[in-house]
């Protein structure tokens, strides 16, 4: 019982952990400019979306197209959570912790999953609030559009939750491979994983239905009978990759 409490404390530590020596070396000015650019990008996105909405061209569900970048975010979250230990020169502490290596890897994996979920749920909540606001303010939008958007949001959330574990594990393995005896295959893994993701996204066109809408393709994917087995297989593969990462940092470290 105590040990399982310690595991969840590890997850909490990883979830809360932020910052690195590399980033803390940035000047206050560059941080300020970073914040300015982010604000400008967000303002431009909101302004453009509102302009499209005012003209009646916006379909709320199209806001989810922003999530097409989410798989890359998941991959890099998994990668970054491991790599941070080396960036911070804290890897010695992390690796010498008196807990199984699978704990160390899986704690980061769960924390990464929670972080991604936080971002995606926050996006979903803001998008829904935005849709409600637009419907209240603009007469040509109906509440039925909001209801439809909620249904579509459920589909996208299911899709992202389903693919997140394998992408996080792939990112972790990419980071681990760089610091272990698997270093020679690290470039190959990058090409394989990123190339595979690119090819899968390229195939999205082939999944579009007669209406040519990505939204309905996502709906078909998550409501099809293959979805549950596909997610189960993906999660199983994620578990295998996490085990492989743990094995590599346990037995094949190259310090």
């Amino acid at each position, binding site marked *: 019982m105590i040990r399982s409490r310690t595991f969840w404390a590890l997850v909490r530590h990883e979830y809360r*952990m932020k910052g690195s020596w590399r980033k803390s070396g940035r000047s206050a000015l560059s941080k300020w400019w970073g914040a300015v650019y982010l604000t400008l990008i967000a303002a431009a996105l909101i302004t453009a979306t509102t302009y499209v909405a005012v003209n009646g061209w916006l379909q709320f569900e199209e806001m989810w197209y922003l999530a097409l970048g989410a798989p890359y975010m998941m991959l890099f979250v998994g990668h970054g959570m491991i790599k941070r230990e080396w960036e911070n020169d*804290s890897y*010695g*502490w992390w690796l*010498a912790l008196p*807990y199984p290596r699978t704990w160390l890897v899986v704690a980061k994996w769960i924390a990464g999953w929670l972080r991604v979920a936080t971002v995606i749920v926050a996006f979903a909540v803001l998008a829904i609030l935005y849709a409600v606001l637009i419907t209240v303010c603009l007469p040509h939008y109906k509440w039925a559009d909001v209801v439809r958007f909620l249904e579509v949001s459920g589909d996208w959330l299911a899709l992202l939750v389903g693919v997140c574990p394998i992408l996080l594990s792939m990112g972790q393995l990419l980071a681990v491979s760089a610091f272990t005896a698997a270093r020679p295959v690290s470039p190959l893994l990058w090409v394989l994983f990123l190339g595979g993701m690119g090819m899968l996204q390229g195939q999205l066109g082939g999944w579009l239905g007669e209406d040519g809408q990505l939204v309905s393709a996502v709906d078909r994917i998550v409501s099809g009978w293959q979805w549950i087995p596909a997610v189960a297989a993906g999660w199983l593969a994620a578990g295998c990759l996490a085990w492989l990462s743990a094995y590599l940092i346990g*037995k094949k470290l190259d310090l």
Partner: protein
Amino acid sequence: MTEPVITFERVTKRYGKKLALDGLDVAIPAGRIVGILGPNGCGKSSLFRAAAGLIRPDEGNVRVFGREPGWQTNRDIAYLPDRARWYPNLTVAQTFDWGQTFLPGFDREDAERLAAAMEIDPDMKIGGMSRGQEARALLILCIARDVPVVMLDEPFAGIDVVSREAIIAGLIEHLEDRSQTMLISTHDIREVEGLFDYTVMMDRGRAIWTGDTERLRAEYGSLHDVFRLLYRKEWKR
């Protein structure tokens, strides 16, 4: 001699073509303050990493309390890694919280007492500290643990004189009432040689002299003189 807590038997470790440990044979006795001494690149950090289970030898055996080193044996070892740093966004108090949660035998009260003695503000963020202050905080994270073995890999490297003195004072105070085995590696022994009662001199991945420090001093003079004598060739190159 008492039963050794850590043993290396013909241990070899290669990094590519570089031989970090070259048939290392050494036994670390229990309850001693052991100086692991030698020039840069002589294999000190590889010895510590192998004892902490971070790296596996290519040949030979490492045993910690008679077992293969790994996460299980690390319950009984407090290890300060070489050139280790800490998460910059955590405060010292949060760092001690981390120690209390994850490090068996971590004594919070002892850590706070040591922090006060070494002039470390618990509310200070690690990211806002000097390297010397950070090194003191990390040393506390190790020595505030009530475990049989403490391993400090180059705890004085890259640290100003004031911090170095604070660390040595903290170590001496700590050692007064403990019966731990402590391994301290350094390539600069002038200020610390009085700490050690057992010495392992390393060169090119091997232990070239091992034994009681008093015997070494009786044979050669101060450890500093021994160092100069044994590594003269190294320095001439």
